[in-house]
């Protein structure tokens, strides 16, 4: 206890040095563990999303782009596939197709046009409000609600995608009818609408007398068509009947199609049908694409581990030097202790009490930080993965 008392007194008196040594030691302990936790959580999050998506249909091209766009709603824009491909899957009777239209955004969050099957497939539940039922309805992910501070009864406006096209479509104002429970997945970061609503945003479907100016929003007056001011479309009970789509729905686009086969045999048959490299569409297994990505990341991680190890060794050497110099500075104190009758080993006990106290403090700090990272890893990883979208 006396050695501990003296160690604590020494550390308190030289608090600046003790603080720096403690924090550096805590960092050395914390960084590799936290990195490991975040990486393994990332791996689990990535792979689980891939594993939960049996097959993905999309336009032929980069499988990674297709996967990232359809599963993580990223910025990648794979060429769209026509809805007739969705019908083809239905007609085959081998799987359930779920279109994913992810070309637009609102307030920085991806607008995902899909069908109600998507919510059942991903097992998404509502924490507030109701599901999609009317053209223009939006159901938002938990992070969207938290970040924007919006909920049921509020509205979102789609971001204009063709600013320089004066004849182009106006943004669509969408009432929020539901908020999803958090899932720590990209779904938390998405604004879900019916795929028909996505087509309205794209300009494929439109109504009449449905353009609202910014001034009218304030005044509540009637609509005028005026491209010189900020305007957007609003779907109301009065104008919903006037909304219509031009052309055949078979030709309407979707970014990708999540394909949920009835069984392994159906999956095998379906995959066989899309093997032809001349076919403009491809059917891929997202899990394999993600695993390839994860393997690549972890090859880079091995390099990162080496760098971390070198830095840790250098930092430990620096701490060792600081402790050694501290021991040298305290040589006189140790000589005094011996002269005053300090028992054999007391000097070493004094020095090790300080080192052990310092390391224990570092371990406690590192432990607290690791616990915080561990508890929040899933949400932080979800947020980090969403950063790229």
């Amino acid at each position, binding site marked *: 206890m*006396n*050695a501990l*008392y*003296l160690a604590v*007194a*020494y550390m*308190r*008196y*030289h608090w600046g040095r003790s603080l720096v040594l403690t924090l550096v030691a805590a960092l050395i302990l914390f960084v590799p563990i936290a990195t490991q936790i975040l990486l393994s959580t990332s791996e689990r999050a990535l792979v689980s999303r891939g594993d939960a998506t049996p097959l993905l249909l999309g336009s032929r091209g980069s499988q990674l782009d297709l996967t990232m766009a359809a599963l993580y709603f990223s910025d990648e824009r794979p060429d769209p596939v026509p809805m007739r491909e969705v019908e083809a899957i239905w007609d085959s009777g081998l799987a359930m197709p779920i279109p994913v239209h992810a070309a637009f955004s609102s307030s920085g969050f991806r607008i995902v046009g899909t069908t109600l099957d998507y919510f059942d497939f991903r097992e998404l539940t509502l924490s507030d409000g109701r599901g999609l039922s009317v053209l223009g309805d939006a159901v938002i992910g938990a992070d969207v609600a938290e970040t924007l501070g919006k909920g049921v009864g509020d509205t979102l406006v789609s971001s204009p995608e063709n600013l320089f096209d004066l004849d182009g479509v106006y943004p669509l104002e969408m009432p929020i009818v539901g908020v999803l429970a958090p899932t720590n997945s990209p779904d938390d970061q998405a604004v879900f609408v019916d795929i028909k609503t996505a087509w309205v945003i794209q300009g494929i479907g439109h109504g009449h007398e449905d353009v609202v100016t910014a001034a009218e929003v304030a005044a509540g007056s009637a609509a005028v068509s005026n491209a010189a001011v900020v305007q957007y479309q609003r779907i109301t009970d009065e104008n919903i009947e006037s909304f219509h789509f031009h052309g055949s729905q078979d030709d309407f686009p979707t970014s990708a199609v999540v394909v949920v086969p009835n069984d392994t045999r159906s999956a095998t048959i379906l995959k066989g049908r899309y093997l032809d490299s001349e076919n403009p569409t491809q059917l891929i297994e997202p899990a394999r694409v993600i695993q390839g990505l994860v393997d690549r990341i972890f090859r880079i991680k091995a390099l990162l581990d080496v760098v971390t190890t070198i830095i840790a060794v250098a930092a430990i050497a620096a701490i060792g030097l600081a402790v050694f110099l501290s021991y040298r500075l305290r040589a*006189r*104190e140790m000589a*005094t*202790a*011996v*002269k*005053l*009758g*300090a*028992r*054999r080993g*007391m000097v070493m006990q*004094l020095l090790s009490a300080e080192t052990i106290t310092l390391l224990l403090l570092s371990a406690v700090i590192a432990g607290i930080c690791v616990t915080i990272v561990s508890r929040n890893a899933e949400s932080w990883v979800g947020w980090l993965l969403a950063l790229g979208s």
Partner: protein
Amino acid sequence: MITARDVTFRYGGTGFRLRVPEFVLQNQERVAIVGPSGSGKTTLLNLIAGILTPETGLIDVAGTNVATLSDAQRRRFRASTIGFVFQDFALLDYLSARQNILYPYRITPALTLTAEARERAEALAVSCGIGDKLDRHPSALSQGEQQRVAICRALVTQPKLILSDEATGNLDPESKARILDLLFEQASQAGAAVLAVTHDHELLPRFERVLDFAQFREEADA
């Protein structure tokens, strides 16, 4: 208090040799040791304290032949029987004056830090004129005050013998006499003998006896 007879000692490799045919220090006696640098004055203190062990001879301190004790026994003996005062005070910068005085209790199981020891430390500090500075660290004390703390530390364990190694060497002339008087006064109250190495010849009249160390060196050289 001390009887040293036929004591020889040498540092390996340096050629230094010390021979003390006989040296006696009575109980509560105040003896100064003078002599040229390198003559072995501090070595004798270290031999008496059991920090060094002689090649031959007897060193009896308070009835114990220090030379025959094991290392652990010598340490315990030193902690419980001897008080040290050093030229550089040897205070710990990170401890307050109070904790510096109580330091011996923190480093050896031979001493137990009790409420009595704390009260004794307080009383010693008051009688040394630093009672109001007990919570200050050494850096906030003058040199004279630091040496008073060192004297309190030497006496707090109620030793029978005070070994003083140039205790006044770092003090101004005025403080030297005052500190030495204080040391004698406190040692007298505690009933302890004082054996002091000093170069300050003007302080010698304050001692009961002066031992010129040159004679031991000459005998060793012979």
